[in-house]
C-alpha cells in the first residue's frame, strides 16, 4: 500500500515538472541569451489559437508550431516585444494574448473578483454592526413585575406536574 502511495506521488511530481518543458523536442537556437529569454517569454504570453487554454510554449498543435516558427523569425529579426505582440494581434485578434490586456473592456475580468470580495467583506462588517446593539439590549433588560409574576406561576405549574409524575411512577 505504501509503495503504491509513494510511487504515485513520485509520478505526479514528475508529470508536474514536465509541464515546464518548452516545445516538443524542437530546438530553437539563438546567438544570445537575451533573445532566447525573449522568445521563451513571448511564447508563454501568446495563446495557441487552436488549443485555446494553452500558450505557444506548451501546445503541440500544428498551428502552435507555425506560430512558434514565426515568433522565432521575428525575434531573430530584431523586432521588439511590442512589435511582435502587435503583429500577432493584428492577425489573430486580442484573444491571442494569453494574458488579456488591461483595458476598459477587460476591467471586469481583472478587477471583478477583488471588487466582489471587497463588497462581501463590507456586507459582513455592516451586518455585524447592526446586530451588536440589539444583543446588548437583551442582556441588560430586567424583568418587569408582570413578567416576574408570570415566571412564579410557571415555576409552580412545573413543580406540580413533577410531583404528579412521581406519584404515577410509584403506582
Amino acid at each position, binding site marked *: 500500500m505504501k509503495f503504491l502511495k509513494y510511487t504515485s506521488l513520485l509520478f505526479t511530481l514528475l508529470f508536474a515538472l514536465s509541464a515546464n518543458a518548452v516545445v516538443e523536442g524542437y530546438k530553437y537556437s539563438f546567438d544570445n541569451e537575451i533573445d532566447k529569454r525573449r522568445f521563451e517569454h513571448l511564447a508563454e504570453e501568446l495563446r495557441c*489559437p487552436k488549443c485555446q487554454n494553452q500558450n505557444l510554449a506548451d501546445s503541440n498543435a500544428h*498551428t502552435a508550431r507555425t506560430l512558434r516558427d514565426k515568433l522565432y523569425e521575428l525575434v531573430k529579426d530584431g523586432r521588439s516585444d511590442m512589435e511582435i505582440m502587435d503583429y500577432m*494581434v493584428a492577425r489573430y*485578434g486580442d*484573444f491571442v494574448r494569453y494574458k488579456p490586456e488591461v483595458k476598459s473592456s477587460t476591467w471586469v475580468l481583472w478587477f471583478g473578483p477583488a471588487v466582489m470580495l471587497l*463588497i*462581501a467583506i463590507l456586507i459582513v462588517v455592516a451586518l455585524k454592526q447592526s446586530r451588536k446593539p440589539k444583543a446588548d439590549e437583551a442582556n441588560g433588560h430586567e424583568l418587569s413585575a408582570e413578567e416576574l409574576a408570570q415566571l412564579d406561576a410557571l415555576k409552580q405549574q412545573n413543580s406540580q406536574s413533577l410531583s404528579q409524575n412521581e406519584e404515577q411512577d410509584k403506582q
Partner: protein
Amino acid sequence: MKRVLLFIPLIIFIGLGWLFFGGLQIENKDVLPSPLIGKKFPPFELPILIKEGEQAKLVNELDLRGKPALVNVWATWCPTCKTEHAFLNQLNAQGVRIIGINYKDESEKAIQWLAELDNPYEFNVIDEEGRLGLDLGVYGAPETFLIDGEGVIRGKHVGDLNAKVWKTLQPQFEALK
C-alpha cells in the same frame, strides 16, 4: 434596512448567471473573431496550381478583385476539407466565385485531388510555407473568407461550409458588391 444588504450577493450571482447563460448560447466558442474583417486582403505574391503543360504563373492580392468571392483555405491533409469539397462544387455550379488557397500542402497531391474530386476553384494559390495563412490568421483548415469586389475582407467562416452554414452566410455574401 440592513437586511437588504444580505441580498446583494444574490443579486450579483443572478446577474452573473444571466451573463454566463448568455455565453452558453454562443454556438461555437472555439471561433475567434477575426481582426481582419473590413481590412484589405493581405498582400502576397505566390504561384498557382497548374496542370501539366500550363504556364507557371504568379498571382497577387489584386487578382482577387473584380467580383465578390469566397476564398477557401484547404489542404489534402485536412479530412474536413474533403467533406466540404462536394458542397463547394455545388456552390460553383450555382455561379459562386471560389478562389482557393492550398495551405501547407504538396502541389502534386493537390492537383491529383482536384482531378479526382472536381475543381470548383477559379484558381488555387499555392501557400506552401503557410505565410499567407499566417497573415490571414488561419489556425485550422478549412476556413473561408468572404471578399467583396474591391478585395476587402468582409467575413470569415472557420470550419467547413455546408448547407446549414450557407443559410446564414449566403445573404451576407450576396449583399457584397
